[in-house]
């Protein structure tokens, strides 16, 4: 009860606050603004209390709440109970709303100093209002008898909940969603500033206060995305850190827009151009956050994703569409109305200027975002165009983003070497020379190590070029003022990350292999021996695989178990981290020796095949020559055989002919053998005289006990997918360097914004 009331109070207070802030914008009265501010704080406090209450409900196992019942249980330890908070749709919307409210606490103080409060808080309030509206429809405070009216008795108190999906029972789940959602919340700030700029008709000064927030949002969202990638790689066993899955893509798209916006904002601040572009891009950052939420939460992607999305119901579906279209129409409607009065100064910089390089860079980033967004939306697009739902193959993403990646690499090097407004060509060429030569040498050297694709080679060239260009620029900046080194550091990190992408994803090696217990197998140059399994938890098992390489021995223990909760097989990989590579072992299955399954019997029509172990048997035809037909008519001894073509992978096929011999009413079997490993018997035959292709034979395949196949077949077989990811550490190190660069930039831009606000006041 209390929880629902708190959400209603928060919603009403927020609604009134938005109205007051708008009136304050029109009248410019301080008293009106302070009412708006007070109401906004009421809304913030209510939502904090609601979130606290939600946490208490979970920690005290109050299973009367549908949400707590659905995502928690008494067995869960406390840290995992925290991840129950946002394991479901309702909880994650509450988390998003909470972070939006917490950002508002700081944003109110910040914008008040910058004289931007009325307009920014009006627009930001609209965002909070929509999230609260979502919570009104999908409340985490619904009781079980409200969720299933008539089916569950009013006042019933379940003794236990359903529990948390084991996929989410992970320390990454305790931290990853918080980071991602605070990124989503932060993306609302540039939208609010862009709307505020249009309301105030102040098209230049808004950039200064907006920049630190934008960079902060890009940082947090970026960290969240990479955490998700690391989680997928290290724990979920997706085999890589990026799978172009809709859920991953949908957080990448707003991030790309935010990074593009950072670049055009920088350009506008120097040259005064790209005013409308900046307003539009700032709004798109948040609009694409909403669009991804719609894609991943509405169930519209259906069967086309690995993630199983819970259908949120029609109400939530239409509400999400309503919120998305409202924010798009409001923002772009305003932009359309203001289009004539927004100054569009003539672009004064030359083609060889940093401004233009920045513009091209963000155009490349925005194009990548658009391509990825189109790919992710493929089920919707084809649903409308062709009337049937299809998805794009993940090769779509690499083939469209790779050329853009080349451009981004090159531009991030050239752009950093160019001067503002215009560069002298001779000077530019001189500064380009060293990084270009180094990049060329580096790329050519890598050609000898198996670099064999033109586009990938260009991508590597771009990345190495950018690396050296930015190292050089960074060196110069650090000598002057280290505070300004954020951009150089970020681009060095980007270049390293790009190189890591190529080494770990283009030149990785993968092999699916069956490991017979105790028997060594050579996999990708590593000697693997499956040693057996041991229980590590009440339902989990670790499978120990000894790895020998270069004279060293190590053990990896991937985990595999049948989950009670999902009724399915759960698998966690194990990774051997080496300096130059990761050796990644993902378990697929444990096959008990097939010994018990011998002999096996099959009914085969002509041309049909059956498989035993690694051999396939195909029924070719009956072996019943005319001489035998004559013998049958004369009542003599008759032999009828069945020609069975046996194929074993790697060796040529062989035809064997098991037969039955009929002599004065007696039938004797005449089995055939294949490679001293199998005996094949003809059990019965059903020739079809009308349609000979319908003739059927019944055969039995017996594995010969003394054969090597039989010895292998009695053992446990662990099937794993082993892969080598060369230099994957470059990816993680690149990410860390990028994060450092972002932080340096945020510090610089915040100081700058504060300084400029002091000057204006």
């Amino acid at each position, binding site marked *: 009860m209390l929880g629902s009331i708190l959400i209603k109070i928060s919603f009403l207070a927020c609604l009134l606050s938005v109205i007051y802030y708008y009136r304050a914008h029109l009248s410019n009265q301080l008293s009106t603004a302070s009412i708006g501010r007070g109401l906004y704080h009421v809304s913030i406090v209510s939502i904090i209390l609601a979130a606290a209450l939600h946490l208490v409900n979970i920690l005290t196992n109050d*299973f009367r709440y549908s949400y707590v*019942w659905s995502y928690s249980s008494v067995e869960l330890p406390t840290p995992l109970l925290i991840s129950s908070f946002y394991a479901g749709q309702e909880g994650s919307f509450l988390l998003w709303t909470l972070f939006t409210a917490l950002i508002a606490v700081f944003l109110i103080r910040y914008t008040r100093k910058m004289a931007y409060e009325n307009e920014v808080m009006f627009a930001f309030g609209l965002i909070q209002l929509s999230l609260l509206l979502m919570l009104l429809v999908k409340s985490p405070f619904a009781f*079980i008898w409200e969720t*299933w009216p008539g*089916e*569950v008795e009013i006042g*019933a*108190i*379940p*003794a*236990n*909940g*359903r529990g948390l999906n084991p996929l989410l029972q992970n320390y990454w789940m305790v931290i990853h969603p918080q980071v991602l959602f605070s990124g989503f919340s932060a993306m609302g700030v540039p939208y609010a500033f862009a709307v505020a700029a249009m309301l105030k008709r102040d098209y230049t000064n808004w950039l200064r206060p907006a920049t630190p927030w934008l960079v902060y949002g890009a940082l947090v969202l970026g960290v969240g995305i990479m955490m998700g990638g690391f989680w997928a790689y290290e724990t979920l066993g997706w085999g890589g850190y990026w799978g172009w899955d809709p859920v991953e893509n949908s957080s990448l798209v707003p991030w790309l827009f935010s990074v593009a916006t950072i670049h055009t904002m920088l350009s506008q601040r120097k040259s005064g151009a790209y005013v409308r572009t900046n307003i539009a891009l700032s709004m798109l950052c948040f609009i694409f956050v909403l669009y991804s939420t719609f894609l991943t939460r509405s169930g519209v992607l259906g*069967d086309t994703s*690995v993630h*199983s999305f819970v*259908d949120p119901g029609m109400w939530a579906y239409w509400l999400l569409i309503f919120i998305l279209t409202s924010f798009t129409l409001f923002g772009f409607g305003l932009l359309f109305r203001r289009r004539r009065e927004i100054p569009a100064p*003539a*672009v004064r910089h030359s*083609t060889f200027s940093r401004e233009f390089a920045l513009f091209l860079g963000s155009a490349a980033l925005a*194009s990548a975002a658009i*391509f990825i967004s*189109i*790919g992710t939306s*493929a089920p919707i697009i*084809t649903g409308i165009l062709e009337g*049937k*739902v*299809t*998805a*794009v*193959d993940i*090769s*779509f993403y690499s*083939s*469209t983003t790779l*050329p853009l990646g080349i451009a981004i690499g090159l531009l991030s090097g050239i752009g950093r070497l160019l001067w503002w407004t215009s560069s002298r060509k001779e000077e530019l060429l001189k500064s380009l020379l060293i990084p270009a030569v180094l990049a060329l040498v580096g790329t050519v050297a890598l050609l000898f190590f198996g670099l064999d694709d033109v586009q990938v080679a260009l991508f590597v060239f771009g990345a190495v070029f950018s690396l050296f260009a930015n190292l050089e620029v960074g060196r110069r900046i650090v000598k002057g003022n280290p505070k300004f080194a954020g951009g150089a550091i970020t681009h060095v990190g980007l270049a390293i990350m790009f190189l890591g992408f190529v080494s770990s994803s283009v030149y990785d090696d993968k092999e*699916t*292999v*069956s490991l*017979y217990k105790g028997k060594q197998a050579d996999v990708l140059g590593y000697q693997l021996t499956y040693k057996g399994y041991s229980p590590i938890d009440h339902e989990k098992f670790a499978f120990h695989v000894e790895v020998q390489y270069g004279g060293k021995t190590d053990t990896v223990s991937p985990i595999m178990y049948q989950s009670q909760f*999902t*009724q*399915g*097989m*759960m*698998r966690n990989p194990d990774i051997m981290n080496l300096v130059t590579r990761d050796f990644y072992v993902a378990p*697929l*299955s444990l*096959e008990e020796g*097939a010994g018990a399954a011998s002999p096996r019997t099959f009914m085969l029509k002509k*041309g049909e*095949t059956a*498989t035993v*172990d*690694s051999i396939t048997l195909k029924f070719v035809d009956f072996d019943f020559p005319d001489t035998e037909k004559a013998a049958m008519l004369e009542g003599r001894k008759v032999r009828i055989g069945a020609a069975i073509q046996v194929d074993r*992978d790697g060796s040529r096929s062989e035809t064997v002919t098991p037969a039955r011999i009929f002599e004065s009413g007696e039938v004797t079997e005449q089995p055939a053998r294949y490679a001293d490993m199998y005996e094949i018997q003809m059990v019965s035959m059903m020739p079809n005289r009308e349609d000979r292709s319908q003739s059927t034979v019944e055969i039995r395949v017996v594995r010969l006990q003394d054969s090597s196949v039989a010895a292998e077949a009695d053992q446990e*077989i662990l*099937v794993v*997918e082993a892969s080598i990811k060369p230099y994957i550490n470059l990816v993680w190190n690149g990410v860390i360097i990028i994060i450092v660069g972002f932080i340096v930039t945020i510090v610089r831009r915040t100081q700058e914004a504060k300084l400029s606000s002091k000057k204006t006041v």
Partner: protein
Amino acid sequence: MKLKSVLGVATIIVFVIFGSYSFFETNIEYTDVSGAMRLNKKVQLKGVWNKEKESHFDAAATQFTFFLVDDAGKECKVVLDGAAPNNFEIATSIVAKGRFIEEEGYFHATEVLTKCPSKYEAEAEEVNKTV
């Protein structure tokens, strides 16, 4: 400025053409068994697992073989690279990504996605069990 606009427009056109070409080229159609046999390209084959017929894992080839029946009731042998996917046994429907190999007479899948039963209907009952 003129040159820049021309270049800009040209770049955009190239991007649009390239993008839509990639889009339709990599689009993987959902289809049934006869569709997979007719289209000689990568498709997503939708159906259910035929539990009557034998399915097995071949450790030497690391392939999982099973029989899939589509909505029209047509059956097809599917050979998947790797082991049976998560939740295969309880899936209400499965989608196999790959192509039909005419010479071999089976659908060669590189990936099989499983769709699990919605827990919703059973939920109220489940809640009552825990009361």
